[in-house]
Protein backbone atom coordinates (compact mmCIF):
# COMPACT_ATOMS: atom_id res chain seq x y z
CA UNK A 1 0.00 0.00 0.00
CA UNK A 2 2.86 2.32 0.93
CA UNK A 3 4.54 1.88 -2.46
CA UNK A 4 1.57 3.32 -4.38
CA UNK A 5 1.20 6.52 -2.37
CA UNK A 6 1.56 9.80 -4.23
CA UNK A 7 1.77 12.31 -1.40
CA UNK A 8 4.61 12.47 1.11
CA UNK A 9 4.43 10.60 4.39
CA UNK A 10 2.54 12.50 7.11
CA UNK A 11 5.53 12.00 9.44
CA UNK A 12 7.83 13.66 6.87
CA UNK A 13 5.33 16.51 6.53
CA UNK A 14 5.34 16.83 10.33
CA UNK A 15 9.15 17.09 10.30
CA UNK A 16 8.93 19.66 7.50
CA UNK A 17 6.40 21.71 9.43
CA UNK A 18 8.52 21.55 12.60
CA UNK A 19 11.72 22.52 10.76
CA UNK A 20 10.06 25.44 8.96
CA UNK A 21 8.26 26.67 12.11
CA UNK A 22 11.56 26.61 14.00
CA UNK A 23 12.75 29.29 11.56
CA UNK A 24 10.18 31.65 13.06
CA UNK A 25 11.93 31.32 16.44
CA UNK A 26 15.42 31.80 15.05
CA UNK A 27 15.27 34.35 12.24
CA UNK A 28 13.99 37.86 12.89
CA UNK A 29 14.66 39.78 9.70
CA UNK A 30 11.83 40.20 7.17
CA UNK A 31 14.32 39.45 4.38
CA UNK A 32 14.93 35.97 5.77
CA UNK A 33 11.28 35.22 6.50
CA UNK A 34 9.56 36.72 3.42
CA UNK A 35 10.30 34.03 0.80
CA UNK A 36 9.62 31.01 3.07
CA UNK A 37 6.42 32.70 4.38
CA UNK A 38 5.11 33.43 0.87
CA UNK A 39 6.08 29.96 -0.39
CA UNK A 40 4.39 28.17 2.52
CA UNK A 41 1.28 30.34 2.25
CA UNK A 42 0.95 29.68 -1.49
CA UNK A 43 1.35 25.93 -0.94
CA UNK A 44 -0.40 25.65 2.42
CA UNK A 45 -3.59 27.68 2.08
CA UNK A 46 -5.07 25.89 -0.96
CA UNK A 47 -4.09 22.48 0.50
CA UNK A 48 -5.39 23.39 3.96
CA UNK A 49 -8.93 23.60 2.53
CA UNK A 50 -8.97 19.80 2.56
CA UNK A 51 -8.76 19.58 6.32
CA UNK A 52 -9.97 22.91 7.74
CA UNK A 53 -12.77 25.28 6.68
CA UNK A 54 -11.26 28.34 5.02
CA UNK A 55 -13.62 30.59 6.99
CA UNK A 56 -11.91 29.43 10.21
CA UNK A 57 -8.46 29.98 8.71
CA UNK A 58 -9.37 33.55 7.69
CA UNK A 59 -10.78 34.28 11.15
CA UNK A 60 -7.52 33.00 12.66
CA UNK A 61 -5.49 35.18 10.30
CA UNK A 62 -7.54 38.29 11.10
CA UNK A 63 -7.13 37.63 14.84
CA UNK A 64 -3.41 37.13 14.37
CA UNK A 65 -3.07 40.36 12.38
CA UNK A 66 -4.92 42.22 15.11
CA UNK A 67 -2.59 40.65 17.69
CA UNK A 68 0.48 41.55 15.62
CA UNK A 69 -0.72 45.17 15.41
CA UNK A 70 -1.27 45.39 19.17
CA UNK A 71 2.03 43.66 19.78
CA UNK A 72 3.87 46.16 17.58
CA UNK A 73 2.21 49.15 19.26
CA UNK A 74 2.83 47.88 22.80
CA UNK A 75 6.37 46.61 22.43
CA UNK A 76 8.06 48.35 19.49
CA UNK A 77 6.41 51.76 18.97
CA UNK A 78 9.59 53.76 18.43
CA UNK A 79 11.31 55.52 15.50
CA UNK A 80 9.76 57.97 13.04
CA UNK A 81 5.99 58.46 12.74
CA UNK A 82 4.42 56.39 9.94
CA UNK A 83 0.76 57.01 10.64
CA UNK A 84 -1.09 59.37 12.95
CA UNK A 85 -4.64 58.54 14.03
CA UNK A 86 -6.11 61.32 16.17
CA UNK A 87 -3.46 62.01 18.77
CA UNK A 88 -1.92 58.54 18.47
CA UNK A 89 1.22 57.94 16.39
CA UNK A 90 2.13 54.57 14.89
CA UNK A 91 5.91 54.57 14.53
CA UNK A 92 8.29 52.73 12.20
CA UNK A 93 9.28 50.19 14.89
CA UNK A 94 5.66 49.13 15.37
CA UNK A 95 5.18 48.86 11.62
CA UNK A 96 8.34 46.74 11.18
CA UNK A 97 7.28 44.49 14.07
CA UNK A 98 3.80 44.11 12.51
CA UNK A 99 5.37 42.97 9.22
CA UNK A 100 7.83 40.56 10.86
CA UNK A 101 5.21 39.00 13.10
CA UNK A 102 2.78 38.54 10.22
CA UNK A 103 5.51 36.88 8.16
CA UNK A 104 6.10 34.51 11.08
CA UNK A 105 2.38 33.76 11.35
CA UNK A 106 2.07 33.13 7.60
CA UNK A 107 5.16 30.90 7.71
CA UNK A 108 3.94 28.84 10.68
CA UNK A 109 0.29 28.58 9.60
CA UNK A 110 1.20 27.94 5.95
CA UNK A 111 3.55 25.08 6.94
CA UNK A 112 0.96 23.64 9.34
CA UNK A 113 -1.81 23.79 6.72
CA UNK A 114 0.51 22.13 4.21
CA UNK A 115 1.06 19.30 6.69
CA UNK A 116 -2.66 18.98 7.50
CA UNK A 117 -3.75 19.18 3.88
CA UNK A 118 -1.37 16.54 2.54
CA UNK A 119 -1.40 14.16 5.49
CA UNK A 120 -4.95 12.91 4.83
CA UNK A 121 -6.50 13.66 8.22
CA UNK A 122 -5.51 13.63 11.85
CA UNK A 123 -5.81 9.84 12.16
CA UNK A 124 -3.35 9.24 9.33
CA UNK A 125 -0.98 11.81 10.79
CA UNK A 126 -1.01 10.21 14.24
CA UNK A 127 -0.61 6.72 12.76
CA UNK A 128 2.37 7.88 10.72
CA UNK A 129 4.00 9.57 13.73
CA UNK A 130 3.65 6.32 15.64
CA UNK A 131 4.97 4.17 12.81
CA UNK A 132 7.82 6.33 11.51
CA UNK A 133 8.90 8.60 14.34
CA UNK A 134 8.39 6.22 17.23
CA UNK A 135 5.57 8.03 19.03
CA UNK A 136 4.52 5.63 21.81
CA UNK A 137 1.36 3.73 20.75
CA UNK A 138 -0.44 4.71 23.95
CA UNK A 139 0.00 8.43 23.22
CA UNK A 140 -1.17 7.83 19.64
CA UNK A 141 -4.20 6.04 21.09
CA UNK A 142 -5.03 9.04 23.30
CA UNK A 143 -4.78 11.54 20.44
CA UNK A 144 -6.84 9.37 18.08
CA UNK A 145 -9.41 8.83 20.83
CA UNK A 146 -9.52 12.59 21.46
CA UNK A 147 -10.59 13.15 17.84
CA UNK A 148 -13.29 10.53 18.13
CA UNK A 149 -14.65 12.37 21.17
CA UNK A 150 -15.22 15.62 19.26
CA UNK A 151 -18.70 14.77 17.86
CA UNK A 152 -19.79 13.43 21.25
CA UNK A 153 -18.61 16.53 23.06
CA UNK A 154 -20.31 18.88 20.59
CA UNK A 155 -23.56 16.89 20.99
CA UNK A 156 -23.23 17.13 24.80
CA UNK A 157 -22.63 20.85 24.51
CA UNK A 158 -25.73 21.33 22.32
CA UNK A 159 -27.91 19.37 24.77
CA UNK A 160 -26.51 21.29 27.71
CA UNK A 161 -27.28 24.64 26.11
CA UNK A 162 -30.88 23.54 25.29
CA UNK A 163 -31.34 22.41 28.91
CA UNK A 164 -29.94 25.68 30.25
CA UNK A 165 -32.25 27.68 27.96
CA UNK A 166 -35.27 25.75 29.18
CA UNK A 167 -34.23 26.33 32.78
CA UNK A 168 -33.72 30.01 31.91
CA UNK A 169 -30.18 30.09 33.27
CA UNK A 170 -27.38 31.79 31.32
CA UNK A 171 -26.02 30.34 28.10
CA UNK A 172 -23.34 32.92 27.36
CA UNK A 173 -20.11 30.97 27.84
CA UNK A 174 -18.05 34.18 27.90
CA UNK A 175 -19.51 34.71 31.37
CA UNK A 176 -16.96 32.95 33.66
CA UNK A 177 -19.68 31.53 35.95
CA UNK A 178 -21.60 30.02 33.02
CA UNK A 179 -18.34 28.79 31.52
CA UNK A 180 -17.38 27.10 34.79
CA UNK A 181 -20.79 25.39 35.05
CA UNK A 182 -20.81 24.25 31.42
CA UNK A 183 -17.23 22.96 31.67
CA UNK A 184 -17.93 21.16 34.91
CA UNK A 185 -20.96 19.39 33.41
CA UNK A 186 -19.07 18.40 30.27
CA UNK A 187 -16.06 17.21 32.23
CA UNK A 188 -18.31 15.16 34.49
CA UNK A 189 -20.04 13.40 31.57
CA UNK A 190 -16.73 12.92 29.75
CA UNK A 191 -15.11 11.40 32.84
CA UNK A 192 -17.84 8.79 33.06
CA UNK A 193 -17.51 8.04 29.37
CA UNK A 194 -13.71 7.87 29.56
CA UNK A 195 -13.83 5.33 32.38
CA UNK A 196 -16.13 3.04 30.40
CA UNK A 197 -14.32 3.44 27.09
CA UNK A 198 -11.04 2.77 28.94
CA UNK A 199 -12.46 -0.43 30.42
CA UNK A 200 -13.70 -1.40 26.96
CA UNK A 201 -10.25 -0.70 25.44
CA UNK A 202 -8.54 -2.79 28.13
CA UNK A 203 -10.91 -5.68 27.48
CA UNK A 204 -10.18 -5.47 23.76
CA UNK A 205 -6.46 -5.63 24.51
CA UNK A 206 -5.17 -2.10 23.97
CA UNK A 207 -1.99 -3.08 25.83
CA UNK A 208 -0.88 -5.65 23.29
CA UNK A 209 -1.35 -3.57 20.16
CA UNK A 210 1.75 -4.04 18.00
CA UNK A 211 3.54 -1.24 16.22
CA UNK A 212 3.15 -1.52 12.45
CA UNK A 213 6.12 -1.62 10.07
CA UNK A 214 7.94 1.56 9.14
CA UNK A 215 7.35 2.61 5.50
CA UNK A 216 10.09 3.31 2.97
CA UNK A 217 11.36 6.84 2.29
CA UNK A 218 10.38 7.73 -1.27
CA UNK A 219 11.22 10.46 -3.72
CA UNK A 220 8.36 12.74 -2.66
CA UNK A 221 9.50 12.47 0.98
CA UNK A 222 13.03 13.46 0.01
CA UNK A 223 11.64 16.38 -2.01
CA UNK A 224 9.79 17.71 1.06
CA UNK A 225 12.89 17.39 3.25
CA UNK A 226 15.00 19.07 0.55
CA UNK A 227 12.50 21.95 0.40
CA UNK A 228 12.83 22.48 4.17
CA UNK A 229 16.62 22.43 3.88
CA UNK A 230 16.50 24.92 0.98
CA UNK A 231 14.32 27.29 3.00
CA UNK A 232 16.76 27.10 5.91
CA UNK A 233 19.76 27.77 3.66
CA UNK A 234 17.96 30.71 2.05
CA UNK A 235 17.00 32.22 5.41
CA UNK A 236 20.48 31.68 6.81
CA UNK A 237 22.23 33.47 3.97
CA UNK A 238 19.74 36.33 3.72
CA UNK A 239 19.86 37.42 7.32
CA UNK A 240 22.07 37.52 10.34
CA UNK A 241 21.26 35.05 13.11
CA UNK A 242 19.92 36.42 16.40
Amino acid at each position, binding site marked *: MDGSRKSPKPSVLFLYSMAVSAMAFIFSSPAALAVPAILNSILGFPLGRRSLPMKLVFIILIFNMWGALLNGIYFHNEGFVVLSIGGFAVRSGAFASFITLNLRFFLIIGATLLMLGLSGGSRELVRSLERDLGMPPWIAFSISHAFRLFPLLSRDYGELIVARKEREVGTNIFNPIVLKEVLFSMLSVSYERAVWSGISA*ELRGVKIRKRSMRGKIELQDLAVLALAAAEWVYAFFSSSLI
Partner: protein
Amino acid sequence: MVRGMTDDEKKERKVRYTGIDLALLAVVGVISGIIFAGGWSIYYAVEAVAGPVGARLASYGLWFIGAPLAATLIRKPLSALLGETVGAFVETLIAPAGGITNIIYGVLQGAASELVYFAMRYKKWDSIAGALSGLAAGPIAVALDALLFGDIGSSLEMSLWVIAAMASGAIYGFISSYAAKSIRRGK
Protein backbone atom coordinates in the same frame (compact mmCIF):
# COMPACT_ATOMS: atom_id res chain seq x y z
CA MET B 1 0.63 -12.23 41.78
CA VAL B 2 1.36 -8.89 43.41
CA ARG B 3 2.95 -10.59 46.42
CA GLY B 4 5.66 -12.21 44.25
CA MET B 5 6.71 -8.93 42.59
CA THR B 6 10.05 -7.18 43.11
CA ASP B 7 10.15 -3.51 44.10
CA ASP B 8 11.03 -2.50 40.53
CA GLU B 9 8.13 -4.50 39.12
CA LYS B 10 5.78 -2.87 41.60
CA LYS B 11 7.06 0.58 40.60
CA GLU B 12 6.65 -0.25 36.90
CA ARG B 13 3.15 -1.50 37.53
CA LYS B 14 2.28 1.75 39.29
CA VAL B 15 3.52 3.92 36.40
CA ARG B 16 1.85 1.91 33.64
CA TYR B 17 -0.97 3.77 31.90
CA THR B 18 -4.19 1.77 31.72
CA GLY B 19 -6.86 2.11 29.05
CA ILE B 20 -8.86 4.28 31.46
CA ASP B 21 -5.88 6.63 31.95
CA LEU B 22 -5.44 6.95 28.19
CA ALA B 23 -9.14 7.65 27.68
CA LEU B 24 -8.96 10.30 30.42
CA LEU B 25 -5.92 11.78 28.70
CA ALA B 26 -7.97 11.99 25.50
CA VAL B 27 -10.79 13.81 27.34
CA VAL B 28 -8.28 16.27 28.79
CA GLY B 29 -6.76 16.67 25.31
CA VAL B 30 -10.11 17.60 23.72
CA ILE B 31 -11.25 19.95 26.48
CA SER B 32 -7.92 21.69 26.90
CA GLY B 33 -7.36 21.81 23.11
CA ILE B 34 -10.66 23.67 22.68
CA ILE B 35 -9.81 26.02 25.56
CA PHE B 36 -6.30 26.63 24.18
CA ALA B 37 -7.80 27.51 20.78
CA GLY B 38 -10.27 29.92 22.42
CA GLY B 39 -7.51 31.44 24.55
CA TRP B 40 -6.13 33.39 21.57
CA SER B 41 -9.29 35.49 21.12
CA ILE B 42 -9.49 36.15 24.87
CA TYR B 43 -5.83 37.23 24.91
CA TYR B 44 -6.22 39.63 21.96
CA ALA B 45 -9.49 41.09 23.29
CA VAL B 46 -8.08 41.74 26.76
CA GLU B 47 -4.75 43.03 25.40
CA ALA B 48 -6.60 45.76 23.47
CA VAL B 49 -8.27 46.96 26.70
CA ALA B 50 -5.90 46.11 29.53
CA GLY B 51 -2.47 45.90 27.88
CA PRO B 52 0.11 43.10 28.06
CA VAL B 53 -0.03 42.61 31.84
CA GLY B 54 -3.83 42.41 31.95
CA ALA B 55 -3.91 40.07 28.95
CA ARG B 56 -1.38 37.73 30.54
CA LEU B 57 -3.24 37.74 33.82
CA ALA B 58 -6.60 37.03 32.17
CA SER B 59 -5.60 34.42 29.62
CA TYR B 60 -2.21 32.75 30.10
CA GLY B 61 -3.46 30.33 32.74
CA LEU B 62 -5.97 29.00 30.21
CA TRP B 63 -3.02 27.71 28.17
CA PHE B 64 -1.58 25.90 31.18
CA ILE B 65 -4.65 23.98 32.37
CA GLY B 66 -3.95 20.78 30.44
CA ALA B 67 -1.23 19.80 32.92
CA PRO B 68 -3.08 20.20 36.27
CA LEU B 69 -6.27 18.79 34.77
CA ALA B 70 -4.55 15.62 33.53
CA ALA B 71 -2.38 15.23 36.63
CA THR B 72 -5.32 15.54 39.03
CA LEU B 73 -7.48 13.13 37.03
CA ILE B 74 -4.83 10.50 36.20
CA ARG B 75 -2.41 10.89 39.15
CA LYS B 76 0.57 9.19 37.54
CA PRO B 77 4.08 10.36 36.60
CA LEU B 78 4.22 12.22 33.27
CA SER B 79 0.47 12.86 33.27
CA ALA B 80 0.97 16.64 33.53
CA LEU B 81 3.42 16.68 30.61
CA LEU B 82 1.16 14.45 28.51
CA GLY B 83 -2.01 16.41 29.32
CA GLU B 84 -0.47 19.68 28.17
CA THR B 85 1.18 18.11 25.10
CA VAL B 86 -1.93 16.25 23.89
CA GLY B 87 -3.99 19.43 24.40
CA ALA B 88 -1.48 21.41 22.33
CA PHE B 89 -1.51 18.72 19.63
CA VAL B 90 -5.31 18.84 19.46
CA GLU B 91 -5.21 22.66 19.29
CA THR B 92 -2.77 22.48 16.37
CA LEU B 93 -5.06 20.17 14.43
CA ILE B 94 -8.37 21.98 15.07
CA ALA B 95 -7.46 25.68 14.87
CA PRO B 96 -3.80 26.30 14.14
CA ALA B 97 -3.57 29.97 15.22
CA GLY B 98 -0.05 29.29 16.44
CA GLY B 99 0.51 26.42 14.00
CA ILE B 100 2.82 23.65 15.03
CA THR B 101 4.65 25.95 17.47
CA ASN B 102 1.77 25.13 19.85
CA ILE B 103 3.37 21.72 20.31
CA ILE B 104 6.70 23.32 21.29
CA TYR B 105 4.87 25.48 23.84
CA GLY B 106 2.85 22.48 25.05
CA VAL B 107 5.86 20.23 25.60
CA LEU B 108 7.93 22.88 27.42
CA GLN B 109 5.06 24.21 29.57
CA GLY B 110 4.01 20.65 30.35
CA ALA B 111 7.59 19.78 31.36
CA ALA B 112 7.69 22.77 33.74
CA SER B 113 4.39 21.70 35.32
CA GLU B 114 5.57 18.10 35.51
CA LEU B 115 8.63 19.23 37.50
CA VAL B 116 6.32 20.44 40.28
CA TYR B 117 4.72 17.01 40.65
CA PHE B 118 8.16 15.41 40.38
CA ALA B 119 9.45 17.69 43.18
CA MET B 120 6.51 16.49 45.28
CA ARG B 121 7.56 12.90 44.50
CA TYR B 122 4.23 12.29 42.81
CA LYS B 123 2.49 12.14 46.15
CA LYS B 124 0.39 15.31 46.14
CA TRP B 125 -2.34 15.82 43.55
CA ASP B 126 -4.46 18.44 45.28
CA SER B 127 -5.45 21.95 44.19
CA ILE B 128 -2.30 23.50 45.70
CA ALA B 129 -0.16 21.24 43.54
CA GLY B 130 -2.38 22.19 40.58
CA ALA B 131 -1.86 25.89 41.31
CA LEU B 132 1.91 25.41 41.59
CA SER B 133 2.03 23.45 38.33
CA GLY B 134 0.20 26.29 36.54
CA LEU B 135 2.52 28.81 38.18
CA ALA B 136 5.63 26.92 37.00
CA ALA B 137 4.59 27.14 33.34
CA GLY B 138 4.45 30.97 33.42
CA PRO B 139 8.15 31.82 32.95
CA ILE B 140 8.47 29.29 30.10
CA ALA B 141 5.58 30.87 28.19
CA VAL B 142 7.01 34.39 28.62
CA ALA B 143 10.46 33.18 27.47
CA LEU B 144 9.02 31.52 24.35
CA ASP B 145 6.98 34.66 23.59
CA ALA B 146 10.18 36.70 23.73
CA LEU B 147 11.73 34.41 21.11
CA LEU B 148 8.74 34.03 18.79
CA PHE B 149 6.85 37.29 19.11
CA GLY B 150 9.71 39.56 20.17
CA ASP B 151 7.88 40.43 23.39
CA ILE B 152 10.91 41.92 25.09
CA GLY B 153 10.60 44.86 27.44
CA SER B 154 12.58 46.48 30.22
CA SER B 155 13.51 44.30 33.18
CA LEU B 156 10.58 45.75 35.16
CA GLU B 157 8.12 45.02 32.33
CA MET B 158 9.48 41.51 31.86
CA SER B 159 9.18 40.87 35.60
CA LEU B 160 5.57 42.08 35.57
CA TRP B 161 4.73 39.81 32.62
CA VAL B 162 6.30 36.80 34.31
CA ILE B 163 4.44 37.55 37.56
CA ALA B 164 1.14 38.01 35.67
CA ALA B 165 1.64 34.75 33.74
CA MET B 166 2.52 32.89 36.94
CA ALA B 167 -0.45 34.34 38.83
CA SER B 168 -2.78 33.45 35.97
CA GLY B 169 -1.33 29.93 35.83
CA ALA B 170 -1.82 29.53 39.58
CA ILE B 171 -5.46 30.71 39.44
CA TYR B 172 -6.50 28.54 36.49
CA GLY B 173 -4.39 25.64 37.75
CA PHE B 174 -6.19 25.80 41.10
CA ILE B 175 -9.65 25.99 39.47
CA SER B 176 -9.00 23.16 37.00
CA SER B 177 -7.50 20.81 39.56
CA TYR B 178 -10.31 21.65 41.99
CA ALA B 179 -12.89 20.78 39.30
CA ALA B 180 -11.05 17.57 38.40
CA LYS B 181 -10.78 16.61 42.06
CA SER B 182 -14.50 17.20 42.63
CA ILE B 183 -15.33 15.00 39.64
CA ARG B 184 -13.05 12.22 40.89
CA ARG B 185 -14.53 12.49 44.36
CA GLY B 186 -18.09 12.38 43.01
CA LYS B 187 -17.57 9.04 41.22
